[in-house]
């Protein structure tokens, strides 16, 4: 289950962060998302020789925690997407698929002429779309 998704801007500032848990760990999730930016920086700044070349947007698993897995995605405009899930055996393909749909939703949201680039995303449509994507995460492969 996805517990948190976030869009992070150029100055590593949160543009959109939404947690999907009833529990009181929203703050903890914010911390996790924030800390995962360290890994994104590390991956972007020091691409490994042996690792996969960083010419794709999907950054893979970022951050191991006891109960969560954190995945990252970097758009061509250097906006970062972070996904936190409690599902400990997630398939990369699912995550990639999720990010692809999420990216499409993001592009639609920022293409709104009334949206100012670099500002927080407050669109309700975007929020609804994101929660739909989040709910359907993993279903296609499981079904």
């Amino acid at each position, binding site marked *: 289950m996805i517990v948190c998704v976030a869009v992070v*801007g150029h*100055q*590593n*500032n*949160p*543009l959109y*962060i939404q947690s999907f848990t009833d529990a*009181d*760990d*929203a*703050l*903890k999730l*914010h*911390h996790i998302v*924030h*800390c995962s*930016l*360290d*890994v994104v920086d*590390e991956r972007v700044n*020091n691409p*490994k020789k*042996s*690792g996969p070349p960083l010419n794709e947007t999907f950054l*893979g*698993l*970022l*951050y*191991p925690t*006891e109960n969560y897995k954190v995945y990252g995605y970097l758009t061509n405009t250097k906006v970062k997407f972070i996904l936190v899930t409690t599902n400990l055996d997630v398939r*990369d393909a699912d995550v990639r698929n999720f990010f692809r749909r999420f990216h499409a939703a993001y592009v639609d949201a920022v293409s709104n002429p009334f*949206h*100012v680039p*670099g*500002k*927080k*995303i*407050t669109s309700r449509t975007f929020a609804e779309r994101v929660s739909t994507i989040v709910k359907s995460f993993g279903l296609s492969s499981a079904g």
Partner: protein
Amino acid sequence: MEEYPEEFRSPPVRLVALVGCPEQHGLISTHFLSQQPPINTLALPHFSKLSLLLHRSSKSSSSSSAAGILKRDWLVKHRTKIPAVVGALFLWDHVSGDPAQWVQVCSDLDELKAAIRPRNIKLLLLVVVGQSDEISEDRLLALRKRAEVDSKYLLLFNPDPSQLNNSLQRLGASFAELATTFYRDEGRRIKAPIEKKNLSSLDLQVRYCFKVAVYAEFRRDWVEALRFYEDAYHALREMVATSTRLPPIQRLLEIRTVAEHLHFKISTLLLHGGKLIEAVTWFRQHIVSYKNLVGPPKVIFLHWEWLSRQFLVFAELLDSSSATLQSVSSLPLGTVEQPLTEWEFHPAYYYQSAAQHLEEKRSSLELAVSISEAFNDNDDGSAESVVQSIYIGQFARLLEQGDDLAMQFLTDDEYTLYAIAEGKRFQDSFEIIALLKKSHEMYTNLKVQRMGSLCAFQIGREYFSLGDFGNAKQLFDGVANLYRQEGWVTLLWEVLGYLRECSRKQGAVKEFVEFSLEMAALPISTIGSIQTSKCGPGGPASLEQRDMIHTEIFALVSGEARPISLDGTDDLKDNTLHLEIDLVSPLRSVLLASVAFHEQIIKSGVSSLITLSLLAQLPLSIEIDQLEVQFNQFECNFIIMNAKKCPLEAVPSEQHDHRVESAPSLALVPNKWLRLTYDIKSEQSGKLECLSVIAKMGPHFTICCRAESPASMDDLPLWKFEDRVETFPTKDPALSFSGQKATQVEEPDPQVDVTLGASGPALVGERFLVPVTIASRDHTIYAGEMKINLVDVRGGGLFSPRESEPFSMDSHHVELLGIVGPEGEDESQRGPDKIKKIQQSFGLVSVPFLNIGESWSCKLEIMWHRPKPVMLFVSLGYSPNSNELNAQKVNVHKTLRIEGKNAVLISQHFMLPFRRDSLLLSRIKPVSDSSKFVSLPLHETTVLVVSAKNCSEVTLQLLSMAIEVDDDGIEKSWSIQHGGEDLGTAVLVPGEEFKKVFTVIPQVDSSKLRLGMVHLKWKRHCGIEDRSGLTVTDAHVLTKHELPDVHVELSPIVVSLDCPPYAILGDPFVFCVKIRNQKELLQEVKFSLADSQSFVLTGSHSDTVFVLPKSEHVLYYKVVPLASGLQQLPRISLTSVRYSARFQPSSAASTVFIFPSKPHCKMAGITDQGLESIIAD
């Protein structure tokens, strides 16, 4: 790692024993220890000691159905008590001695064999021999038979220094070989049942695997050791569901403890083998397999403690082995199925996790303690005599039964009580802080700032809960900075909440107010707010909470209410609270002051507009009592009073030294600019800048806000990411983009006229006068100073580079000669304070005091040495109204371009006398050197015509013209004849030319002869009407012109035509040609005469004549004119054969006027004077 016994932490070392001959033991055991790998030695002086050491207790030997998995002392027993090899030392004397000694040796041997046989310990015989001992093979054989050892295990040991090394080497090799054999045999023996799978329980399987692994470790067979440890670990994991030997809590405890030990061994082996990825993967699996085995809720804290310990131990292992691991990026990242991330290779991550688990442990322990206290009020002391039992991971009660001690199993309840009582004894917070600090330090070293910040935040939280607010605040401050910078509002809110509580607890009112205001001004909207109960002391991040904090703070600062439990605030009533907000302060969103002048440049003394805009992002409106606007010019400061709160009349009198304005309302509505526009007037020129705006709220609270220009104002740091309506600080959007908080005040307009009255171009050489008039219109002039500058129009100096020698008269083509004061003012009347300083292109003169309406004038004398245009700059600086020294100066600037021109152009040309020609050889054969000079015949008269042309635009009056010889010291080489110098009033209108004729007779034969300078004296011709506008001094000007050098040579032949000046028609006259030979040689001259229509003549037409040296030959022709008028005489042409020079007189020279009849008037004879003065057109 320290919680494990030593035998677990280090790899096992082989153990051997030495018996007998104690004096040799030291040598041998030292050598064994230094071997690679080392061997530990048990040194037993007597054979009887060994059987005591190897004595087997009857109880433990019969335990086939185990009561536990691993015995606590098994490993230490094998490491310290049970040797793999026993080396029995005998002296050769005893072996070869008398029968009594032999019997003693045999009995010792028997005893030894009996002791070691049950444990399969290997035996090695050592016979200590001396240097001189005779070795008998028979005795050795007998000894060997008795001991039942192979021949190679009977060694001779010679302690003599020459043999010692050899003996020790042999000894070491044999001991090592036998020890390896022992451990391998033991391993095989235990391995057999495992491989046959006929073990009765999993307990035994774990134990046997463990033992095999340990024996492999003794042999340094790491691969096998690892394999069996892993087998043991897997077998153990299976026991979780199956074992029923112990009550559930203790059962889980034992399994976890054993698993921990096995895991520790495995990790150590993997890491020492350099298999970092395997170790990390193994650790992860370890955690995953045991993570869900939490146990009953009462003892869940044991689970967290255990987990925390796993992370801590692994972190320490990683830390100690990661000396070579420097960079994360160099590591490969796991497999596709099991991707590993960067931090999993860093101890910092494990330390952090250990701390997190320890926190969990603490909270669940607290819960367990509270439950146990609620249910078990009477502590019956059952936890007191609980000790660790002989099996790893088991606890038992120690019962004293008389002298004997007995172990009694515990029930789970008893154990729980014991565990809780144990848990209470420890302070977890310090442990957590220590772990987090380690992690924080490592992250900081790796420059991983966000993880580091999270650690710092967690440390701060621990300190906070411990009541160490100083440390906590310091940590929180650092974390808050990062969150501010990156705009993580919710995280910042939490940290600020802690900071606020810290300062509240410390009684730091100012900081408390600052943090509270910052929290209140955070952009937390209802959309992104987090409704959670797990929030810090700042409460949940929500709009309501912001409102609450806002209300609380403004109640505090206005003195209406006291916040709860804020210590040390009693002095707030007496002291004022003053906040400074600068350009980088996080409090900018609390109050932002933008100041814009409407004009970029204002006149001094003229009032202009200034707009002051204030913005607050607080959740509720605030009312400001008074605003003070401060400028760099102190006099401009002014105060704006809130009319509602404080009417203008009630302003305290001491504030009246500033301007006081009143505004109807000074209420700041959230996210809405409060715009105030006022007049401003400055008397002082220069920069006028608004420095700060001080807002006063309540009697004791002021906020000083640095003024910002709207044009260069940064966005509010956190609010800039918010999707909100942005408004301009000023009504006029253009002003918002360009407005500045500073303006330039100009000096007042000068009320003085400076006139430069020069007319026409200046002429080179004259003293040109430029009249300057200073007329005061509305300003009196105090301390006036006039600067004069002459600047080349084309830029650069007034001299050319090649003439750049300083202070040379000629270096300046245009020169300021002096300043002539107004008429009647004498130089001596000037006071000593009057400045007058003149340089070649710069002058400074002081201007006397002038009242309004008065004027003063002077004249600048400028001389041009070369014709060129020049810019004249005149600037007058004065103070208009007072004679204070530092008063504002007013400057007036004037410029004038003046052309400098040559007045006259002097030229010259040479002519030979009429009808007389000299043959000059240089004209025939031009030599390159002399060709540029004019050639003059020696001793012959030459006419020099000097003409002066007026090329200016004014009429000139010529005074004199003369040729001056400058080098009069030299012998006169030529003579010049001319008339009087005075020319009278020769007036030359523009473009007119004046000519004067000189005759020159060269007297020296020279190829280069200087003729001298033409000196022309002239002055401007001024009509009577011109006298008033005099711009030039009356003095004459001398213009010099250098005559070109000439070439003088002796001419070999001079030809002159001789005929009367006129003739009368029909009247014959004689026309002769004189050929004069000036040389010492005979000259052959051919001549021919061309007939003319107008004349009839007698004489030879062509012939060759010889002219004698220094003599003259004359050709006579008698001619009769046939026509009247100007007629051409028959033309003669001569050719000098010697010089191949042909000569023909010019047609002008051979022309004569024929009168039709004899004229009646008396003809004036042409005087043969050498000088004529003609003014020609």
